[in-house]
């Protein structure tokens, strides 16, 4: 715990704190995690969250695979990650304790629901003896055992509900108690409960509020001698803020980009974790003219989107790694026909079904190279949940300006993680009007804008511009051509066009000095961890800087120049070293990979340790 000062007897003031809620997947841990997030955001903390849930919807209750968790870091300073290890852990059953205890900071707060420590639950969690009765927890943590079931039922004694239903409210007891420990008001959560259930299920709303308050009062009445903590408001830029997850930001970015480009947005997807919420999200924006379709499979999803682009819409499709494999042939067709198309890959652990609910960034080389033949397309990646908004608009800009398919990489950590976001003015984004071909003028399918080598689209319904496109190689006029030199010319110009994208991107931002001992080069969802690490090391006076790449194909033209300024270049990635391969092959630079593939975001400490090693060498 980052202790700044002991402010008063009652509260200990902290600069930041990491809290993890863990329980059975039916225990409502995501719900109370979200509520803690909303309350902290409303209070004015900076924060980052990380939901961590199992692949099974409801694994057998009480088992290790059924454990679901939600981690949040709140701070009065800038918070870029959900934190390495929790300072406080709420474990609703023995399985949750078994899975998460090793991560809890020594001396951390440990809240346990003693009612769940039955013989059967202990057995399922693999405990030979009850940790509440043996010595294993004593003295190591600030242990708080509460019979949450008992107090939940007690507080609802006057409510007409079955005991089973009453116990479903117990997560709110844990939440109420944590609000007491961290000196949070209940107001935001009560408002949430009332708006969610107040009208439809007033009894449930009432019950949840009672239990929430019971948890809070339990702290007040029985734990009076305990330390309570306070994390003050963060000093952040003035403005209007909201909480946003990566996939929500992506949905809004796509809608905004389509508006700016004056194209109708058609999104076509097939359910897959962690991309499904994009399709669900967009389906709610029909009133913005969005057409969101659930296709019969991943191939159909991209085909429908590509057909829509051919007809003049902005076609977008989204999936995760395995779905990308299925879409690969169509990406080849989109490349050959040079149609605009945005393809979202919300990466997860692989190969194959792999770790469908854990994060990884191991599809980079697939995005860049994963097609038959020489088929270059642009690849970009978002670096934080809110950055998915900006990056979605950038993807649309590139797709339309260069008439090309583009792959947008996000990952599960960004997709599900949330952070406060200073909402930008949509007027601050420029219009992206890419006109269709003019009627009445001769049209040649692959004649190109000399500036950026893009072709111009003519769309069905335009008079006199009828033409045929397809997978067979064409010449400039659009006729099928098997001519050897034409194929080489077309291959080269398609590739040249993609290289041109690099001329349209801003200079790479360097966090820190332009020269020094170590430069960390990251991309995608590791931004928070890398930046936190670099900033704190810089504050300690170390000669370290970082850059974080949004554009991965083509890579920025200024990279070789930047690399020259540093003695060592470290490339941390949640994969086996894919950007590392790219940088080495494109720039002949002796980069040093740093790779962890455990389905979890980087821990700042792991990175810091690695950089210290490099500095000492």
């Amino acid at each position, binding site marked *: 715990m980052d202790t700044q000062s002991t402010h008063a007897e009652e509260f200990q003031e902290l600069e930041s704190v990491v809290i993890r809620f863990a329980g059975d997947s039916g225990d409502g841990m995501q719900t109370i995690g979200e509520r803690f997030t909303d309350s902290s955001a409303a209070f004015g903390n900076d924060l980052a969250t990380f939901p961590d849930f199992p692949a099974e919807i409801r694994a057998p209750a009480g088992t290790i695979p059924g454990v679901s968790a939600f981690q949040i870091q709140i701070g009065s300073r800038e918070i870029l990650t959900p934190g390495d290890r929790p300072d406080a852990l709420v474990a609703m059953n023995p399985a949750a304790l078994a899975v998460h205890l090793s991560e809890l900071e020594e001396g951390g707060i440990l809240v346990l629901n003693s009612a769940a420590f039955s013989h059967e639950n202990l057995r399922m969690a693999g405990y030979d003896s009850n940790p509440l009765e043996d010595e294993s927890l004593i003295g190591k943590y600030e242990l708080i055992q509460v019979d949450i079931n008992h107090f939940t039922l007690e507080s609802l004694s006057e409510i007409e509900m079955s005991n089973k239903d009453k116990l479903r409210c117990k997560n709110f007891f844990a939440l109420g108690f944590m609000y007491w420990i961290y000196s949070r008001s209940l107001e935001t959560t009560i408002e949430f409960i009332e708006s969610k259930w107040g009208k439809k299920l007033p009894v449930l709303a009432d019950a949840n509020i009672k239990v929430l308050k019971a948890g809070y009062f339990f702290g007040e009445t029985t734990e009076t001698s305990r330390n309570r903590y306070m994390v003050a408001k963060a000093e952040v830029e003035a403005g209007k803020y909201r909480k946003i997850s990566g996939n929500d930001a992506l949905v*809004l970015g796509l809608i905004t980009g389509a508006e700016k480009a004056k194209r109708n947005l058609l999104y076509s997807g097939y359910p897959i974790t962690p991309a499904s919420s994009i399709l669900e999200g967009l389906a709610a924006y029909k009133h913005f003219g969005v057409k969101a379709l659930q296709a019969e499979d991943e191939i159909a999803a991209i*085909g429908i989107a590509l057909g829509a682009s051919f007809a003049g819409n902005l076609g977008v499709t989204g999936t995760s790694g395995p779905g990308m494999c299925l879409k690969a042939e169509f990406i080849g067709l989109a490349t050959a026909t040079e149609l605009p198309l945005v393809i979202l890959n919300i990466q997860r652990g692989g190969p194959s079904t792999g770790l469908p609910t854990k994060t990884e960034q191991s599809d980079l080389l697939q995005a860049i190279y994963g097609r038959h033949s020489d088929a270059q397309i642009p690849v970009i990646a978002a670096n934080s949940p809110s950055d998915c908004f900006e990056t979605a608009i950038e993807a649309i800009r590139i797709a339309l300006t260069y008439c090309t398919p583009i792959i947008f990489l996000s990952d599960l950590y960004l997709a599900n993680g949330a952070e406060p976001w200073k909402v930008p003015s949509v007027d601050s984004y420029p219009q992206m009007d890419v006109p269709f071909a003019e009627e009445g003028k001769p049209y040649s399918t692959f004649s190109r804008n000399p500036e950026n080598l893009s072709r111009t689209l003519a769309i069905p319904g335009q008079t006199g511009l009828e033409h045929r496109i397809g*997978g067979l190689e064409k010449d400039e006029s659009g006729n099928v051509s098997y001519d050897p030199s034409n194929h080489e010319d077309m291959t080269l110009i398609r590739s040249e066009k993609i290289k041109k994208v690099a001329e349209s991107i801003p200079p790479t931002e360097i966090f820190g000095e332009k020269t020094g001992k170590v430069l960390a080069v990251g991309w995608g969802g590791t931004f928070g961890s890398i930046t936190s690490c670099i900033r704190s090391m810089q504050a300690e006076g170390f000669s370290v800087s970082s850059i974080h790449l949004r554009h991965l194909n083509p890579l920025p033209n200024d990279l070789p120049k930047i690399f020259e300024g540093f003695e060592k270049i470290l490339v941390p990635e949640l994969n086996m070293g894919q950007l590392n391969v790219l940088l080495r092959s494109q720039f002949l630079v002796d980069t040093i990979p740093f790779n962890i593939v455990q389905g979890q975001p980087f821990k700042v400490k792991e990175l810091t340790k690695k950089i210290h090693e490099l500095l000492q060498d």
Partner: protein
Amino acid sequence: MSTETLEEKKLTKKDFVTPNDVRWCPGCGDYAILNSLQRCLPELGVPKENYVVVSGIGCSSRFPYYMNTYGFHTIHGRAPTIATGVKVANPELIVWMITGDGDGLSIGGNHLMHMLRRNVDVNILLFNNRVYGLTKGQYSPTSPVGTRTKTTPSGSIDNPINPILFALGAEATFIARTVDTNPKHMISVFKAAQEHKGVSFVEIFQNCVIFNNKTWEPVYGRQNRDDNLLILEADQPMVFGKEEKMGISLNGSTPEVVKLGDADPVEKNVLFHKPDQTGSLYTAMLAEMEYPNFPTPVGILRQVDKPTYDSQIHEQVVEAKASDAAKASLQDIVYGPSTWTI
């Protein structure tokens, strides 16, 4: 463009012909199909720029290159997905989709099924020659058991799929069959297909002159067609036969061929064709009537009304745009339901 002059000018077959050389084998059945569609479209009163022809991969799928409309030659089996995207993006367009027995029923069977059950308003022509032509003569999912090809030297063992039953299984709203040897019949079926609001599935018996020549000869050859083809017309009796007048009647729930001679079909209980039956049993009966046990039916086997996928998507958007939610500005939705100010 001077649209006035184009509108005034009546379209002719020539308007739908591209200058590209047609590269099918001499004698291929595809020529007659192409010719028939090019003759049919000018009569339907749709501006040429509103036509889109989409295809997959295979001999038949080269079709768009020879139609002077918007066209998209896509990838193997996936034409239904592109066609769906085009139609949903712009329901004003008239979309024709060209596929074959391999493209549509083997690699693309899944997409075809979903396009049919969704009732996307696209006109599908499935060229059935019971062989893979472009890859040089392997058996296809419609080849009869025992078909000997380079990949089945001892004869194929898998049961072929019946395209009409396939379409019926997906409850297609328009199911028809025609033959590449009868342009007049093709044109009448194509016209009805385009005019049908909803998905139109047309199986065309097509001859591959190189790898499966005369596969349909027993059914539609000059000497055989009168006896082995049953030309269906709505509300008309099911009669056929060159020398001897024959009809189809029901024996219990099973169809049977009856001799008519000079008798009135009504007297002999000959069935009258009713393509608008909403249940599937009747169409299934027709689909299972096949040479040599029965004359093979051609014409519109089934035509029923159901709302189309594309129009419903469009309507949902129109409705949503007229709702209260639509009053929100782009900035409002980016702010979302809950914000705080610092």
